């Protein structure tokens, strides 16, 4: 199984997203690098609207990820309720 990665800007708007990722992806590895947060996981990584909204206290649209996203590695599956990256092998 290949590793997916997600790089987010190390800014305030990223905090609820990172917290939600930790909750929904217990095996994800979160690493701080200068000005960025790099998150890796085996196979897939999901960011759920409901979890982020609960963390931030305001409704979070998965497309809002564009405001904090730096880069990622994987295929994208995005819908109204989640943003997911994955490898199929």
């Amino acid at each position, binding site marked *: 199984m290949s590793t997916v990665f997600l790089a987010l800007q190390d800014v305030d708007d990223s905090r609820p997203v990172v917290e939600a990722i930790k909750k929904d992806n217990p095996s994800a590895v979160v690493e701080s690098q200068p000005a960025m947060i790099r998150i890796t996981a085996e196979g897939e990584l999901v960011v759920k609207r409901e979890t982020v909204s609960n963390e931030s206290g305001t409704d979070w649209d998965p497309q809002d990820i564009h405001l904090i996203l730096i880069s990622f590695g994987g295929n994208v599956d995005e819908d109204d309720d989640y943003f997911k990256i994955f*490898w199929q092998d």
Partner: protein
Amino acid sequence: MANKLNMRDRYKLMTRLGWETSYQPMDKVFPYDSYEGIKIKDWDAWEDPFRMTMDAYWKYQGEKEKKLYAIMDAFSQSNGHLNISDARYVNALKLFLQGVSPLEYQAHRGFARQGRHFTGEGARVACQMQSLDELRHVQTQIHGMSHFNKYFDGFHDFAHWHDRVWYLSVPKSFFDDANTAGPFEFMVAIGFSFEYVLTNLLFVPFMSGAAYNGDMSTVSFGFSAQSDEARHMTLGLEAIRFMLEQHEDNVPIVQRWIDKWLWRGYKVLSLVSAMMDYMLPESPMSWKEAWEVYFEQNGGALFNDLARYGITVPDYAEICTKEKEHLSHQVWGILYNHTAAAAIHTWMPDDAKMNWLSEKYPDTFDKYYRPRFEYWRDQAENGNRYYSQTLPLVCQTCQIPMGFTEPDDPTQISYRVSEYNGDKYHFCSDPCKAIFDFEPEKYCHAWMPPQQIFQGNCGGEGLPAVLEHYKFNLGADNMDYVGSPDEANWNLWKGLNGSVSGDVKAS
């Protein structure tokens, strides 16, 4: 009022705005997406996984711009250039503005063209958005760098330089090659190889390094650009997948393009290897480490994913694996020797930097490069700073001077040659030769800087005439960092040893 549509329906309704033409047949309206041999059965199968629609696009891009410009204003108002780690760092920005930003503009033009020429409207809309992104990137980069232009040399004529200066023909010829290809090859070249596999190396670890060196302006435009690249990567991957799924005859064509363009991009990125290892005074990550994370690990995962279509990792991957130990040192050596004719400063690393390089490159730096660099440093300190006065032989394909070594012998320069129509053409490597040999009629026309200079097409005879043609401010834009106006200004502003009272470039 009707309920809001879900994302999938919105995407379908807002991107499928095309129609079957009736005044003219479709293949006359879209004449360019068939001659490359790519067979498309069903354009409707095209889907953007981000399901980005124009309204959402404007909304998010507008928000990103507001954030970015607020940071750039704050950086400028607080004299942010005084908080960078060292003025040597600024040379990485010069190389970026001279070599990379004009590529953003070329990408803008390229995607605008594909946004017209693909038959499928889903692909056209995605290309049009990317075209706008690329225009945004070049604009924000010029805007961000304009602050540095007030205080440092080497920024003022970047667009003029990009079209003329020898080392900038490396990135320029890369994009000229892509923009003169057909639309599908362009998508593999830029959308897939460059965006998906390679921009991560430029916009993630290098930009993180910019932050590490105190440059919040550059990291902001870098990450803001890369957040668009995230969409572009998805588009590039979708383009590849779409071609591979549409017809099995497409597979060998796509494989050949992947092989060609990964190598072309890899050679362009060799400039970034020197930026990361030598131009960042404080380096959070070496080029080799970045290569391992973003190419070997991430690119490897991507190739595993594409294996089910029959796509394989290019044969030359093992050359890259061997070269990651050498690339940045060899490129820095080339730039150092030819700094008299470059609008950047170079220098020999100090002991702390050399020790860092030894630590990061334990198998190669002390053995092959430290003795050479210490010798050059001693020579410079004794007043014999070496500047090459001759023109290098450059590779006909990647246009980099022939300074790379054999993959299995780091003491032997790699040198290949082909003959075409009675003329000899020279190459730095087997993959560059193979690219030429497949399309010699294209690459024999490449604009080669040394040949053009010798033919008298670059201002006349001799280096001074050529540098004048380039519009360099001699003694300010070029030569070693030590002794440059940049160094004098920096020492003055920072009250450092060796500061002399002198003209500060801007008040």
